[in-house]
């Protein structure tokens, strides 16, 4: 009887999860998606808890309370820290899958191994490999994003890195295969931790060579792995709810990874094993090229005369926490009847959609956040393009220079605007040390300084002259 009730509840929960994701297709309905997801989760937890096999309740209650104690503060982080939080939650997801797989293996081994069919063993090995590598890989990614001191921010590469990584993975897979064939061998319980150790190590080594600009892709891939490890858990536990929910997460990570890779014109392989940071000295500042600095007053004047302004935000805006100042600038320009749009590159920031969330936080209507492919045709009509902390995503080199590491990457056509202002912290080249051709274009003027301060000054200038109209 309970069995049927549980299965029925699981089916309802599955449907609610699908609806939750379906409602994410528009900001208007998206919050409904959250309620649907919460309802589904609640149903699943209750239905599982009331099963007769669950006889001890103390630890369950304790773990749930602990989950709330840690989870609530984690949900209140500043939005600039959302990429780290996301990476951390992938780590938790991987850990949970890994632990359940481990627990189940030792449980069934202790019971004589009758339950350890080759099918189950395969699922267990897949679960612990994916789970534990996601755990350490995501922790590394979170550490890099949080800029933890003892984790190197720059990509770490060495000779034979790929050979070593693949070797490690092969060894883990070989031991895994042996375990699948001999799950009840006397040695098996000793080999099992070896696989865990190798998976943990592989996770670290996988993320070490990856730099900041590749984080959106890596986070998406880890998202997919976390989902797949839940799927594997579903296979182990013969639980279709786990399989469906995990598959939804896995496919979401997959799609986001593909979008991110396309937006950089790179393959998965290239992101994970290409070590982007290595091609640094590809282009040095050519002699004769000089930046043309502009004053705040001058820029403010040109902005005031414009009909159409496009703001191109990048990771620099997040670092400087400049989104609220950007909103003030937006208000000032809007007040003068100027059309202001934001051009959002898919990989701007450190995770998919990062810029949208930051700008939404600053109360900028989402109707003014425009995707790259939709805004590019309008760029030639744009009077001023204001680049705020974006670099590679507006670099025209991507269109023609085959030697450039970013060649072929689709970019926002900021260079086609009549005037370009670029806010830049210093004269140093940006990520990967690639010179940005845009900065040396005839139409480009530089505003040097911290993004927040420069925009603040622009706003002040515009407020002061606000009366003269």
């Amino acid at each position, binding site marked *: 009887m309970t069995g049927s009730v549980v299965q029925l509840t699981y089916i309802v929960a599955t449907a609610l999860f699908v609806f939750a*994701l379906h409602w*994410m*297709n528009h900001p208007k309905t*998206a919050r409904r998606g*959250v309620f649907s*997801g919460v309802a589904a*989760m609640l149903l*699943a937890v209750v239905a599982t*808890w009331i*099963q007769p096999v669950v006889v*001890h309740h103390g*630890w*369950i209650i304790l*773990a*749930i309370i602990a*989950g709330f104690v840690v*989870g609530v503060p*984690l*949900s209140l982080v500043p939005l600039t820290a*959302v990429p780290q939080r*996301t990476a951390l*939650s992938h780590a*938790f*997801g991987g850990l*949970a899958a890994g632990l*359940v797989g481990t627990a189940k293996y030792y449980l069934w081994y202790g019971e004589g191994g009758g339950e350890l069919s080759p*099918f189950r063993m395969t699922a267990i090995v*897949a679960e612990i*490999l*994916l789970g534990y590598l996601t755990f350490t890989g995501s922790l590394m990614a979170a550490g890099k994003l949080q800029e933890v001191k003892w984790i190197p921010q720059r990509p770490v590469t060495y000779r034979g890195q*790929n*050979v070593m990584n693949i070797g490690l993975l092969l060894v883990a*897979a070989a031991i895994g295969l042996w375990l699948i064939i001999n799950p009840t061998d006397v040695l098996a319980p000793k080999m099992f931790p070896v696989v865990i150790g190798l998976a943990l190590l592989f996770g670290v080594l996988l993320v070490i060579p990856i730099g900041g600009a590749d984080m959106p892709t890596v*986070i998406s891939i880890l998202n997919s*792995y976390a989902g797949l490890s839940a799927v594997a858990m*579903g296979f182990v536990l*013969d639980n*279709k709810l786990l*399989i469906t*929910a995990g*598959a*939804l*997460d896995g*496919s979401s990570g*997959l*799609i*986001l990874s593909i979008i991110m890779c396309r937006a950089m014109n790179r*393959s*998965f*392989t290239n992101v994970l094993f290409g070590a982007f940071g290595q091609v640094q000295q590809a282009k040095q500042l050519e002699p004769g090229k000089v930046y043309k600095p502009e004053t705040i007053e001058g820029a403010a004047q040109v902005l005031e005369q414009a009909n159409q302004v496009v703001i191109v935000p990048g990771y620099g805006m997040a670092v400087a926490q400049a989104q609220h100042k950007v909103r003030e600038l937006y208000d000032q320009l809007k007040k003068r009847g100027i059309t202001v749009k934001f051009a959002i590159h898919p990989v701007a920031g450190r*995770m998919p*959609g*990062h810029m*949208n969330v930051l700008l*939404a936080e600053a*109360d*900028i209507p*989402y*109707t003014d956040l425009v*995707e790259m492919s939709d805004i590019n045709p309008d760029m030639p009509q744009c009077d001023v393009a204001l680049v705020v902390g974006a670099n590679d995503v507006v670099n025209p080199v991507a269109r023609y220079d085959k030697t450039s590491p970013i060649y072929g990457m689709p970019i926002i056509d900021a260079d086609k605007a009549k005037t370009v202002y670029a806010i830049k912290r210093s004269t140093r080249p940006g990520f990967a040390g690639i010179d940005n051709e845009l900065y040396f274009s005839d139409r480009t003027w530089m505003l040097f300084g911290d993004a927040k301060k420069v925009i603040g000054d622009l706003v002040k200038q515009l407020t002061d002259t606000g009366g003269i109209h």
Partner: protein
Amino acid sequence: MARRLITGLGAPLLAGAMLMALPAVAAAQEAAPATHAEQPFDYWSMVFVFLLATFIGIGVIRRVSRLLHTPLMSITNAISAIAVVGSIIVTGSDYPKEIRLMGAVALFASMTNIVSGFLITDRMLKMFKTKREADQQ
């Protein structure tokens, strides 16, 4: 280049291959008449469910607004914390203590993801406003 390609595909392919190998293993299982399985354990239907759920996931998620990719990631994160279901069973069943302890840690990790995942998704989604909604504030 070729070596890179092979290396690069390693991790995802291996994981994929493991899951893809399941049907084959299931077939082998069926061929060798059940020595262990006391209750019928329906491998094929699980693989079916996985395949179909992946297609549904791809279909639904392709339509998600690009504006919402960050909240999408946090909500799918919370959803995949459905691992809580497995953790509850491991923690609450009449198993040896060490095993239940692992379950409890897994339960804590999943619960953290559920709580923080749904809360932060909602917090972010509340911020997305149209022109009129933003002006009303």
